[in-house]
């Protein structure tokens, strides 16, 4: 069978294509982005006519996937962990409605926050929604799990979550392809009321969900992804979830450890398997990438006689991602220390690309705020967040997508003037538009600067829903046309841009300044592509 070198993300994408996927949905976010990108560039997906367009945000993506499932076909939606906060409403309610065609929700966590605002653990959402969760340990398992997840989804008529973390998402290994399945036929739900969550229906469906969740615990006892590996040394037993299992086994290259190990990759936790392990050991160590979800459950509130260690007693650091060395310490080995990093090594934070339009926008904003003694601006998430670093130091907030606009509205209510938001174009259509409508309806004295580089830059330059539509969106939301200003952030326009910004900062109503210049990364790629097209003509 064909063997391919794939990122964990790509293994999931290929697994979905091979499992008869009909629609892929999502919004970009590290480390999940490459799932959609793989399917978008796949010739097979093209010939199979798999739907594979980015959505405006994670909520619209999950809802569209649920709609695809409504037609009896298989759908997948992928997002980064904080994206699931945005999609939490449809996620939790889709567990109550249940599905028709198989539905997989991939949530990619980022422990250690390599590219994120927090390190929340998506497994909690699985538990919260009573949805089964698969957590692959390696790329091959990720590939295999997709078709099993679709089957489980259709068997229990529930969405299934696949939870991955940065290291698996962005690590390559060989993956062997399996048989391909055809797409599912168009078949509407047999019960036309299935998706109508009126209280009377919802109560019935919720009670069915609770029953299903109990059955899933039993199902997972037999799951081939939960593996019990016995050992002679009963002093210690280890429970390792997902990729933590690899970090453990890495430390025992010659035949594995002599103590019992339970690998968990399918949730809800199979209680029997866990008590099988805890029953035969004096002490149990729990290895989880993320929060101590299982550890908290096992410890409970009352003291249990079993000695439990993990993240909560310091055997493993409370925060941050695992690695083989951390795990080695946890099981009582002495890992190699390596050499120390010399003190002269300085940190090298990311920075604006040379010639980036965001930098010119911030230079103008900094100067335009001077006459107002302004202390900075609210901002948002994207490349432009680098305006928080020297030499700009101009950003006072970066909380969640869209929050710049609404925080500016609230701060204006509280007496701040000028109250200014700087938001990227893709972030604006993700979650900024609704906040702008709030501002318009109360004629809030805010200035929203949309730093428009015509792409979703931070995540690698995906198409932006905003491109070419920003002015008409703002006008449609009710911003007065004379207070929708367009500037081009170039050094030669600096004086003019500062003047326009000062005018709008002084205005006591809603104003929008669209500061538009194409991202230099996407511009370079576009020019290269055009040149090679011309050459081949």
């Amino acid at each position: 069978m064909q063997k391919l070198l794939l990122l964990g993300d790509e293994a999931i994408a290929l697994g979905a294509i091979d499992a008869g996927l009909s629609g892929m949905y999502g919004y970009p976010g590290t480390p999940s982005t490459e799932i959609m990108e793989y399917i978008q560039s796949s010739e097979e997906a093209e010939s199979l006519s798999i739907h594979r367009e980015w959505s405006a945000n994670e909520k619209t993506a999950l809802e569209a996937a649920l709609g695809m499932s409504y037609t009896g076909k298989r759908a997948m939606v992928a997002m980064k962990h904080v994206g699931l906060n945005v999609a939490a409403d449809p996620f939790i309610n889709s567990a109550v409605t249940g599905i028709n065609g198989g539905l997989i929700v991939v949530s990619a966590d980022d422990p250690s926050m390599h590219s994120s605002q927090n390190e929340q653990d998506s497994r909690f959402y699985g538990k919260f929604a009573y949805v089964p969760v698969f957590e692959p340990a390696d790329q091959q398992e990720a590939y295999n799990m997709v078709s099993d997840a679709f089957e489980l989804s259709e068997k229990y008529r529930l969405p299934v979550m696949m939870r991955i973390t940065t290291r698996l998402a962005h690590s390559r290994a060989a993956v062997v392809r399996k048989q391909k399945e055809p797409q599912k036929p168009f078949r509407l739900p047999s019960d036309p009321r299935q998706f109508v969550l009126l209280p009377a229906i919802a109560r019935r469906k919720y009670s069915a969900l609770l029953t299903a969740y109990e059955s899933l615990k039993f199902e997972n006892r037999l799951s081939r992804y939960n593996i019990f590996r016995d050992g002679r040394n009963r002093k210690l037993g280890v429970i390792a979830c997902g990729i933590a299992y690899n970090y453990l086994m890495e430390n025992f290259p010659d035949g594995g450890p002599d103590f019992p190990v339970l690998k968990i990759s399918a949730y809800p936790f199979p209680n029997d398997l866990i008590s099988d392990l805890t029953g035969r050991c004096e002490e149990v160590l729990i290895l989880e990438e993320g929060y101590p979800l299982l550890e908290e459950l096992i410890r409970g509130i009352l003291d249990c006689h079993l000695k439990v260690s993990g993240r909560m007693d310091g055997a493993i650091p409370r925060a941050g991602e695992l690695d083989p060395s951390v795990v080695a310490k946890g099981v009582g080995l002495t890992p190699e220390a390596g050499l120390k990093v010399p003190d002269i090594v300085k940190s090298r934070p990311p920075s604006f690309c040379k010639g980036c339009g965001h930098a010119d926008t911030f230079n103008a904003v900094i100067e335009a705020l001077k006459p107002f003694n302004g202390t900075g601006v609210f901002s948002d998430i994207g490349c432009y967040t680098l305006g928080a670093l020297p030499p700009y130091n101009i950003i006072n907030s970066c909380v969640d997508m869209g929050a710049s606009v609404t925080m500016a509205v609230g701060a204006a209510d509280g007496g701040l003037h000028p109250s200014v938001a700087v938001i990227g174009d893709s972030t604006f259509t993700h979650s900024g538009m609704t906040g702008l409508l709030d501002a318009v309806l109360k004629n809030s004295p805010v200035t929203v600067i949309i730093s428009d580089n015509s792409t979703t830059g931070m995540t690698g330059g995906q198409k932006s829903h905003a491109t070419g539509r920003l002015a008409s969106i703002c006008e449609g939301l009710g911003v007065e046309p004379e207070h929708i200003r367009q500037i081009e952030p170039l050094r030669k326009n600096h004086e003019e841009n500062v003047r326009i910004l000062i005018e709008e900062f002084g205005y006591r109503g809603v104003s929008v300044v669209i500061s538009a210049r194409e991202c230099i990364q996407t511009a370079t790629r576009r020019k290269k592509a055009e040149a090679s097209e011309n050459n081949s003509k």
Partner: protein
Amino acid sequence: MKSDIVLSGVGGQGILSIASIIGLAAIENGLYLKQSEVHGMSQRGGDVQSHLRLSDKPVISDLIPHGKADLIISVEPMESLRYLPWLASDGWLVTNSTPYINIPDYPPVEEILDQIRKIRNHKIIDADLIAKNVGSARSGNMVILGAASPFIEIPFSSLENAVKSFFGRKGQEIVNLNIKALQAGRDQKA
């Protein structure tokens, strides 16, 4: 056989091309491999690293444990020092000597090179200059790969094949330049 390699540099310097080429060569030799990459935030001019693990047995962890890397390959001198905790006591450090200065407090280059010279097995080369001399200024990363190649247990001819297939799409001229850069790096003595 096992070869655990940390690749380091600054976002945009092309460490992932080095990783891909070693990966292709490893596959030609029937080796197992895992390669963790950096995507996202730090690609914008920040520090980037990649762990590349080759073995004749299945590779378990995606990350190399501390003190176990056989080789650090760095396209930037200060970045080579950032990953010393991973280097094995008998491991090699191969680095470019040309700094990439995009921070205000970048230390004096001589002090960095002094620190590198304290490592038992090190090889410092001016990859940018060597690349320019062979007429391929943008192939500094292939020069570094060539310089590191004696410490990777893969036949040099496999690396050459990998360079050919990696750059194949870009035409014969680009392939030849990169092969020359690879060879020029290979010829550098420690």
